[in-house]
Every structure is written in C-alpha cells, then in structure tokens.
C-alpha cells in the first residue's frame, strides 16, 4: 500500500509538472483582439449595440439572482452537513411532509421566474423588430464561406464573397497558428455604416449555417430554402468578429464573420469605390485574351474559389479529385472541363455557373496550364458562353 502511494504521488508530481510545462510553453503569444475575443475572456463581449447591452444586463441580472439562491440554498445544506452529522452526535429529527412549506417553496420560485421573464420579454420583442431598416444585406452561408448581397439602401447592388484568409487555413493544418485574428481574418469583410439599422437576411445554399457577431448580440441560423432575418445598429466604428455557429460539415470552424463598421462618410466613399470596381470588373465577354493574361487572371479566381478543396498543389484530397494530371483537365476537348465547372458533379463538386464567362475561361485556362498540366490550350470567354448553351 505504501509503495502504491509513493508511485501514485510520483505520478501526480510528474503529471503536475507536465501540465505546468504545457501551460507555460505551449501557448503561442496572443493579445486581445478588439471586436473579437479577449485573452481568457470571462464575460460576454463588450456590447456595441443596444441589444447586446440589453443581453449583457439581463445576463448579470439573472446570474445575480441565481447566485443569491445558490448561496442561500447551499449555505443551508453545508451548515447542515457540518452540524447535523452523526460524528458530532447529531440525532435525527423526525419531521416530514409539510404542505405549507411545499407551497411556499413552489410559489416563491414561481414569482422569481415571472420577475425574470418580464425584462426578457421586452428584449425578445426588441430583438425581433426588423422593420424600418436603413440597409438590407443578404448573408448566404455556403460551405464554407459567406456571400453578401446589398439588397436595399446605400450600396444596393454590391455583392461579394467573404472567405477565411487562406494562410490561416494552412496554419491550422500545419498546427502552427499565429496572430491575434487567427481564424477570424477574411479576404472581404462585410462593410456597414455606424448608427444605421442594418437588417441581415440569412439563407444558405447547402446546409444550415449560423451568422453570429457576439459584440452585436446577433446570431441567426442561415437555413437553405428559407429566409430569416435579424438586425443590428452598431454604435461604434471598428472591426467586429464572429464565427459560424451551426455545424455545417468539415470546415465548420473555418468560415468566420468579419464586420467592419465605418463612419457614414467612409461608408459612402467605400460604396463609390465598389461601384466603380463593379463597372470596371464587368469584363467585355467578347474580348480575346492571351494565354499569360488568362493564366494570371485564372490564378486569382482559383485562389478565391477552388483552392479550399483542390488545394494549392492541385492534388485535391479525399473525395476531392486532383486537377494536376487529370485527364478531364488535359483533354483536348475543352467542353469536358467546362461541363464539370458549369454543371458540377454528383460526387460533390458544386456548379460554378454563377461565375462570369471571363472568370470561368480564366480559371479553366489556368488549370490547363499549371502544375504538370502544360496543354498550352487557351479557353476564351466566348467558348464558355457557347458551352453554357
């Protein structure tokens, strides 16, 4: 027994030392992220909207009531545990069944619950009031990115896709994460003006996702085939972060939400810039491109849309087919590769028909002339247009 005890204590010492080492060395350096999580944050995010402030107040309110009851009940229990124990000579009393007592401790909690429900009711009603918004934006959850369409208000017509920064996904795979905004940095943040009521309409194109920004007190499932809405009115400018909050498959942890709140003037300037870019981006579908031009453009398209599954190496992985060395990609009949991109496959490749002819031409040309695929084939936008028919 003594030997066992010694072994046990040695093990526990070793375990303790190991934990301490792990704590001291393993954690990469990190600072608070304003608008995102703070290091070892203990509470809800600092509120940036009235709703989030209301939620935080409600949480304190309920937590306080719970703590008071908790302390009261367990003061009694632990007093009893220390006083009414046999080893202290306590003799068991013989009282039981008191309807009066039972009624008292049924009615009082009932009243407390009503007391708690009243302010909560007010908050629910306020949260659900999405009417009279200044700007309406549709957030579409797609495995595993967010699409944003500005439907109404200043900026109407702008749309873009917001994806996790590729380097963060690579850091994750390598097991070597770095940075205060690790897993939260996206290529295109959602831009909104300060002090305006923003209505977010959520939907999804494949499975259920959830659009959440803790600092705004907003979380709304994005459900395929259905449209739901929520709203916020940010009272501060700055960057605010959230993550997808409904299990949506393999890359669930890798589709963050980044909202940049700008002043009214900055927002107007941003909208003007986007409108100009939109006009410039509208490529002439009849333009004939050179091979290097198309490859350069196609690389951008590939990195924005394809790299998550097919990988930078073009090797794919798991159910995702390799592009490097693929007979379909290398086939002299260009319509074969185009058909896959435009229609998708029943094995999981989605249809990319929503991209413009130029983008599809570029990315197809890129894949036909990258890695070991040196076909020299050029796919022009006009050929894509023909393949669509």
């Amino acid at each position, binding site marked *: 027994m003594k030997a066992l005890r010694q072994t046990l204590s040695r093990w526990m010492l070793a375990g303790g030392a190991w934990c301490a080492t792990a704590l001291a060395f393993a954690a990469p350096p990190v600072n608070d992220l304003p608008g995102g999580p703070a290091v070892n944050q203990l509470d809800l995010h600092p509120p940036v909207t009235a709703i*989030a402030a209301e939620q935080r107040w409600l949480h304190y309110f309920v937590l306080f009531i719970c703590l008071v009851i908790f302390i009261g009940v367990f003061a009694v229990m632990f007093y009893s545990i220390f006083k009414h124990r046999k080893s202290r000579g306590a003799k068991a009393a013989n009282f039981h069944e008191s309807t009066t007592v039972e009624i008292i401790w049924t009615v009082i909690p009932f009243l407390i619950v009503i007391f708690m429900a009243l302010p909560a009711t007010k908050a629910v009603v306020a949260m659900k009031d999405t009417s009279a918004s200044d700007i309406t934006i549709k957030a579409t959850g797609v495995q595993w990115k967010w699409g944003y369409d500005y439907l109404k208000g200043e900026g109407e017509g702008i749309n873009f896709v917001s994806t996790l920064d590729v380097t963060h996904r690579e850091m994750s795979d390598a097991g070597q994460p770095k940075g205060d905004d690790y897993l939260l940095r996206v290529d295109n943040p959602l831009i909104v003006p300060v002090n305006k009521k923003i209505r977010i309409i959520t939907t999804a194109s494949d*499975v259920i996702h959830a659009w959440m920004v803790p600092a705004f007190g907003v979380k709304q499932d994005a459900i395929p085939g259905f449209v739901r809405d929520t709203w916020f009115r940010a009272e501060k400018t700055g960057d605010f972060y959230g993550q997808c909050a409904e299990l949506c498959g393999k890359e669930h942890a890798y589709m963050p939400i980044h909202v940049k709140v700008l002043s009214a003037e900055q927002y107007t300037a941003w909208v003007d810039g986007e409108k100009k870019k939109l006009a410039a981006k509208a490529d002439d579908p009849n333009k004939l491109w050179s091979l290097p031009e198309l490859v350069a453009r196609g690389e951008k398209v590939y990195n924005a849309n394809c790299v998550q599954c097919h990988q930078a190496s073009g090797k794919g992985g798991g159910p995702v087919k390799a592009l490097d060395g693929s007979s379909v990609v290398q086939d002299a009949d260009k319509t074969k590769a185009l058909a896959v991109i435009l229609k998708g496959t029943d094995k999981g490749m989605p249809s990319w028909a929503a991209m413009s002819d130029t983008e599809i031409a570029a990315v197809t040309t890129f894949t036909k002339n990258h890695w070991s695929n040196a076909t020299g084939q050029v796919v022009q936008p006009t050929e894509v247009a023909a393949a669509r028919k």
Partner: protein
Amino acid sequence: MSAVLPHPADHGHDHAHDHPHGWRRWLYATNHKDIGTMYLLFSFAMFIFGGILALGIRAELFQPGLQIVNPHLFNQLTTMHGIIMVFGAIMPAFVGFANWMVPLQIGASDMAFARMNNFSFWLLIPAALMIVISFFMPGGAPAAGWTIYAPLTLQMGPSMDAAIFALHIMGASSIMGSINIIVTILNMRAPGMTLMKMPLFCWTWLITAYLLIAVMPVLAGAITMTLTDRHFGTSFFNPAGGGDPVMYQHIFWFFGHPEVYIMILPAFGIISAIVPAFARKRLFGYTSMVYATASIAILSFIVWAHHMFTTGMPVTGQLFFMYATMLIAVPTGVKIFNWVATMWRGSMTFETPMLFAVGFIFVFTIGGFTGLILAMAPIDIQLQDTYYVVAHFHYVLVAGSLFALFGGVYYWGPKWTGVMYDESRGKIHFWGSIIFFNVTFFPMHFLGLAGMPRRYADYPLQFTDFNVVASVGALGFGLMQVYFFLMVVLPMMRGRGAPAPQQPWEGAEGLEWEIPSPAPYHTFETPPRLNATATKVIGASATAAPHHA
C-alpha cells in the same frame, strides 16, 4: 391481471434450481438480476468507448491548430461521443438499475415479461456493434452532430444509414424495456405496496418509462424520414425538393427534450433513496417529490423549441417556449429544497454513496441555473451553440445522471455482489471525479460567454488557456473512471472485499434490504407480507430465501 400474476410464480417453482449455466445463463437470461448486470456492464463498456472518443476531442483541442485529427474525423468524434453516451451509456445504465432494483423494491419475483427483457438487452449488442463499425465504413462515422440535423445528414456516407438503423434498434429496445417496467410496477407490486408507498426510484422510472414510450417513436419517425430523404427521393427535410430542415429540428427536439428528462428523472430517484438513508431521516416531502417528477415530465413536452431560438421563430413562439422552459425551474427547485430539507437536522454520515448524492445536488444545481440562464431567449441568442451549452449539459448529464449512477452503484453494489467496496477507494473516486469534472467543464462557461462555438476542431488563440485546462481535466476524469473499474467494480465482481451484511446502511429502508446480500437468484417468489409503510417484510418468508444460485 389475475391471468398474468400466477404465471411467473408457477414458473419460478419449476425452474428455480436448474437455470442454465455458462454462456447460456447470459444469452438465454430471463432473470432480472442477470439482465440488470448485463445492462450495467454493457453501459460501462460504452461509457469507456465514448470516453475515449471524448479524450480524442480534448486531445485535439488541447492546442490551437490541427495536431491529431483532421476536421472531418473531429466531427465524427463529437457526433459519436454524443450518440454513444446518450443511447449506449446513460440510458442502458438506468435500465440496468431498473432491472435490478424495481422488482426488489416492490417485492416482485421478476420483471413482468422475462423473455422480452432478454430480447431488449440483446438488441443493444448489434446496435452498438453497428455504431462502432461505422468508424470503418467509407467516409467514416456520421459527422453531423448527435442531433443529426438535416440537411447535413444528406451529405453523410453509408455510416449514416447504419447509425439510423442502430438508433431504430435501440429505440425498439427502449420501448420494450419501458413496457416491461410499466407493467411490472403497475401489476406486480406486493400486496400493501400501494403506489404512494412505492420507493421514489420506482416512481421516477414509471414516469420515465411513459416518456420513453411517448417519444422514442417520434425519434424513429424523424430518422426514418431522414433515411427516405437520403435514398428514396422524398423531400421531408431536403430544401432542394421543397422540404423543411427546421421541421426536422422540431420533430427531433420533441423527442430530444423529454429525452433529457429520461436521463435525469431516474437519477432523481436514486438520489431520493440515498439522501434519506445517510441522513437517517425520512424524505421530507415524498408526495411533492412524486408530483414534482410528474410536472417535470409533463412540462418536458412543451419546451422543445428552446433548442431552436436562433432558427428565427416568431416573437410569440420565442416567448412561449421561454416561459415554459423557465417554469421547469419550479418543480426542479422543489426537488432540491426537499433533499436539503431531508438533510436538515438529520444524523448524517458520508460514505461514498452520500458523497456522490451531495456532489450531485451541488453540481447539478449549477447545471440547473445555467439552464435557467439559457432559457432566457435574449441571452440564449448569445450562448446558443457555444461552449456554454456544452458546459451546461455536461453539468446536468455527467454531474447529474452519471454521478447519480455512481452513487447508486456504491449504494446497491453490496446488495448485488455481496461484497463491500473499499471505502477509501470510493472516496478517491468521488473526489477525483468531482474535482476533475469541474476542472474540465467549468472553464467552458467562460469559453461560451466569450463566443467560442461548439463542434470546432480549431479555435482563435485567445481561447487557448481554458482549452488546455479543460483537456487536462478531461484526462484526469477519464483516468478516475478507469480507477473506478479496476479498484472498485472488478474487486466487487470478483467477490474480493468484506462480505456485505444484509443491511449495510444503518438508515436505509426498503424491501431490497429485507433480502440477504448478495441477493439470491430468486427473490420474493411468493408475494411478501408488508408492514404499514411497505418498507419491511412481516414474517420470515423472504429473508429465509431457502435456495441460493
């Protein structure tokens, strides 16, 4: 009733001395004690398997970045951990307790339907095998969460179908077990054991059994529709064909919320047996405990959509489900108050069963309070699908159901095996479990408040420290359960240890303490005569127990 009752009694006399031995004893088992033992061992095996999956999860989350598993395997681990712990560990463990204790507590000779009892146990084995094998099927195990939400289920591989089939089988097993328990309790009580004199464990199981019969078919419906959506072109939940994924959630949680109470009500029953025994004082409010249990069961049917506040319900829907959910705090509070009042001015000792009972009351109450906080729809919007929820349901399921089960094993184990466990080992198990439990799950409240979503294989660096603490705690908690098996369960099963007296606990009351330890193979073959409170056998008929297995 008269047509049913004499039959098992006749049977017992015929075969009392020649029950099968060797493997036949177990495969053909019709004895409630043998079947109870098998249920308990099965559930412990699944508990260890589910625990290993949990340690896989915690190992991956020990550090940010992916080190051990890829995200797809990670989702398989969380999904299967949940399914196995709910359907393979906690539920069968309580059925094992019911098999052992219900006949002993009501003075019945066995369960009402002995062969169906055998069948409902053995159905679990193929179901469990199918679930374990699913990890080796193409595409791996199901990875859509234990709630298997549509339409993510449509993207799963063939293992999803295996899991659906397994859930169907386990559901059938549960329903048969429930029918058995209900019929046993309603028809086979000894004369004088009126319903309102029945031990609370039987009461909570009676109510639980009705819940099971009510909701297991609902789950069966939901997963069958999932199956036909996957293979036969229906579109119940598939939005591509006009189906409604939210409808799946309504149906699932109409099962899922009563399911939560299925896993906690029998635990209340065990605690209600242990606390009076070690306080040496009667349960303060027996009647109100029965009513509180029934109220919780009824309320459990009208609160399901509090799991769905973020799906975008209308205002009235959110308000209704918020109010109804908050109401559950009232009967649950009544239970806590009654246990504390039972302890008050008792003469308490703190053997391991009592430690687990007090630990249960203390830690389960924390889980109850976080449940109340989550019930508030505006706060739930912040906390839904974060680690706060993970912390909450582990406080009620681990510190609730599991601790009650442990308490029950220490309390009734001497009766089952005829051997006392080693008290200091029991205490090590208790303190190790409750400390490591809190080290594991308490930091998750903070992670949830800070917005860390659940079911994430990787997380922002700000969440690192609490995840490290949780992972270290989980490893400790897992090792404590191995310790429990090796140092407590095994010695008792092998008969190593001090022989247990018929009545090992000074203050315990009930018919199970009127028979020798270990409980003879057949008990109460003739209905016992009971005293006025139905806690003691009058005359020598039961204690004599002439034959021993």
